[in-house]
């Protein structure tokens, strides 16, 4: 037969699944009533969202004075949160685009949830951009639109305007990529739907998909081009975000290492968040046969790699600050490690550089508990990284007379909490109403990556299954 399974590869789909099993296992959480766990989680998320939204409303109503910002520290939690959420988004595109181009089959089980995470994380990031601007009702001023103020246009030389283009393009392309990936699965749900309403809704969103060979050929071609487009997009978005800082003259920001360092950090934190989400999903939706230890280990390897790159970047920053001979730059880094915000710096170093190195141990890399805990630690560390870059660089101006400290207020904290409510509300709605694993893609790898081959492949009678001898020595 045309499918060959490499002996060195461990199975990505366990439990001897057939194509029908894949459909059944993944569709059932969409078709069934919400589970108790889902209802509790959703209620908590909505309560947090309502509280957070009220605080965001008050921030806009009163003005940004309700935050702990001052004349020296003009950016703090707002931009920290923005960069953190944008970074989290990157893993989704990386999994769906870069790993598709690299023909990494393990991406198929986790790409849907990761892409959803990307979309919702970018929305959270955008909410902080709207918040920090203070007047969201004039947010359209960021766009190059003809206006009534005369021939006044946006400044295309500004990285902040580049950001507008980068984030909006990234969001749009990610949304389109995610939606196009959903269409075949939506058609599956449509064709299984029992109620008229769900048949109508899933029918409308599946755009009349019929799965013909011609459509599939075009679909694959389109997916490949979208992946090719998204790959540089991933790199460009965080590169441009880093330029918001790097093109300034603030010591600690004005460094050429920022673009690759930010991209690596984004993938690092994004994968950590994917780990947290898929570890919950696989248990709650009983998807252990699809999201296996192989998937978790593969993602942990990416976390180890990107975490190490981030560690090298921290050390490089320090070295260059000394090597450049610029006293302001040198002071900025000494101040980060030993100044008033030393605790944030060392929290960052511990969470991002030291603890992820535990993943070099295979036992830890394949442990669910360790993975979950270390992923949470990475996300905390990456938030501190952005906080350290932003606040510790700003709080010491060139003029000692303007030196100041930043202290978060209730609204700084509540507006951050809002983003969690927003994110988890959207993610829980996604996990209830859409298939969390890409059924069509998982079916494509059943033969080459499953521990049991469907009967028709092995040439035995219909209905029987034969264990793939590669993975089951007993058969041999």
């Amino acid at each position, binding site marked *: 037969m045309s499918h060959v399974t490499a002996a060195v590869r461990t199975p990505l789909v366990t439990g001897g699944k057939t194509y029908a099993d894949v459909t059944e296992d993944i569709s059932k959480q969409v078709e069934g009533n919400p589970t108790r766990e889902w209802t509790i989680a959703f209620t908590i998320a909505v309560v947090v969202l309502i509280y957070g939204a009220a605080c965001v409303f008050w921030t806009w109503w009163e003005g940004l004075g309700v935050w702990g910002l001052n004349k020296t520290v003009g950016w703090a939690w707002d931009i920290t949160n923005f960069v953190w959420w944008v970074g989290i988004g990157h893993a989704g595109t990386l999994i769906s685009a870069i790993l598709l181009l690299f023909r990494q089959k393990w991406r198929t089980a986790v790409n849907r949830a990761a892409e959803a995470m990307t979309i919702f994380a970018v929305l959270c990031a955008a909410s902080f951009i709207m918040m920090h601007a203070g007047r969201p009702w004039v947010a359209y001023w960021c766009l190059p639109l003809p206006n009534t103020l005369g021939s006044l246009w946006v400044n295309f030389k500004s990285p902040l305007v580049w950001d507008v283009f980068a984030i909006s393009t990234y969001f749009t392309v990610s949304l389109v990529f995610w939606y196009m990936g959903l269409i075949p699965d939506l058609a599956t749900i449509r064709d299984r739907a029992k109620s008229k309403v769900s048949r109508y809704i899933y029918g409308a969103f599946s755009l*009349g998909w019929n799965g013909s060979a011609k459509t599939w050929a075009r679909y694959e071609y*389109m997916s490949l081009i979208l992946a090719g487009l998204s790959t540089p997009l991933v790199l460009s978005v965080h590169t441009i975000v880093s330029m918001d800082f790097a093109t300034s003259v603030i010591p600690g920001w004005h460094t050429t290492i920022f673009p690759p360092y930010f991209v690596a950090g984004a993938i690092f934190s994004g994968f950590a968040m994917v780990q947290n989400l898929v570890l919950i999903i696989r248990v709650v939706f009983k998807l252990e046969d699809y999201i296996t230890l192989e998937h978790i280990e593969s993602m942990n390897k990416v976390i180890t790699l990107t975490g190490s790159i981030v560690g090298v970047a921290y050390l490089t920053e320090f070295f260059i600050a000394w090597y450049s001979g610029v006293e302001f730059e040198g002071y900025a880094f000494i101040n980060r490690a030993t100044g008033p915000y030393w605790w944030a710096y060392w929290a960052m170093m511990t969470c991002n550089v030291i603890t992820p190195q535990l993943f070099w141990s295979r036992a830890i890399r394949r442990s669910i508990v360790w993975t979950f805990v270390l992923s949470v630690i990475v996300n905390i560390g990456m938030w501190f990284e952005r906080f350290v870059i932003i606040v510790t660089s700003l709080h010491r101006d060139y003029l000692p007379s303007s030196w100041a400290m930043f202290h978060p207020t209730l609204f700084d904290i509540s507006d951050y909490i809002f983003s969690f409510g927003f994110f988890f509300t959207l993610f829980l709605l996604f996990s209830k109403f859409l298939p969390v694993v890409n059924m069509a893609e998982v079916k494509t790898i059943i033969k080459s990556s499953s521990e049991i081959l469907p009967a028709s492949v092995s040439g035995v009678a219909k209905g029987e299954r034969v264990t793939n001898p590669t993975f089951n020595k007993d058969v041999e």
Partner: protein
Amino acid sequence: MSDVHGSSKFLVGIFDDDDVVLKAVKEVRNSGVRIQEVYSPFPIHGLDIALGHPRSRLGIAAFLFGLSGTLTALALTFYTEGFDWPMIVGGKDSYSPVIYVPVIFELTVLFCALGMVGTFIVSNGMGPTVKPLMYDLRTTDNKFAMAIDLSKNNIGESDIEQILKKSGAAEVNVKQF
């Protein structure tokens, strides 16, 4: 659906496996039977070639849409900053394409992606109100269907049924649209 016009009678061969259906396509075509289309729950590599479908030209559409994005960005930045409201920031020229690379790149990608996806949807005759013509609802689950339009074949119905069964069809159904 764009590939079916008027009322036709179809023989639909249902297959359980993607490798079998791929092999069957070659055998059925070699028997002189003209296949309307094959439907599957996931993409089967080489199926479009086996069916004799021409290579997709989506890549050309993507390139042209991307080019239109590049030109739009160049025109936008040139008009606004080079002509309508020149600004000199940090001693840089008011218009220098190098400064606008991020904007040009982003608009190229945006136009390319949206244009290509739009082309994909239009070329497949897809849309929210489109009711698909499904030969068998199981083709979005675990079955593979080969549809043969009897009005477009000179071979008799029972002969085609035999050919389908011989090439591995688990069942053969008649559908009238």
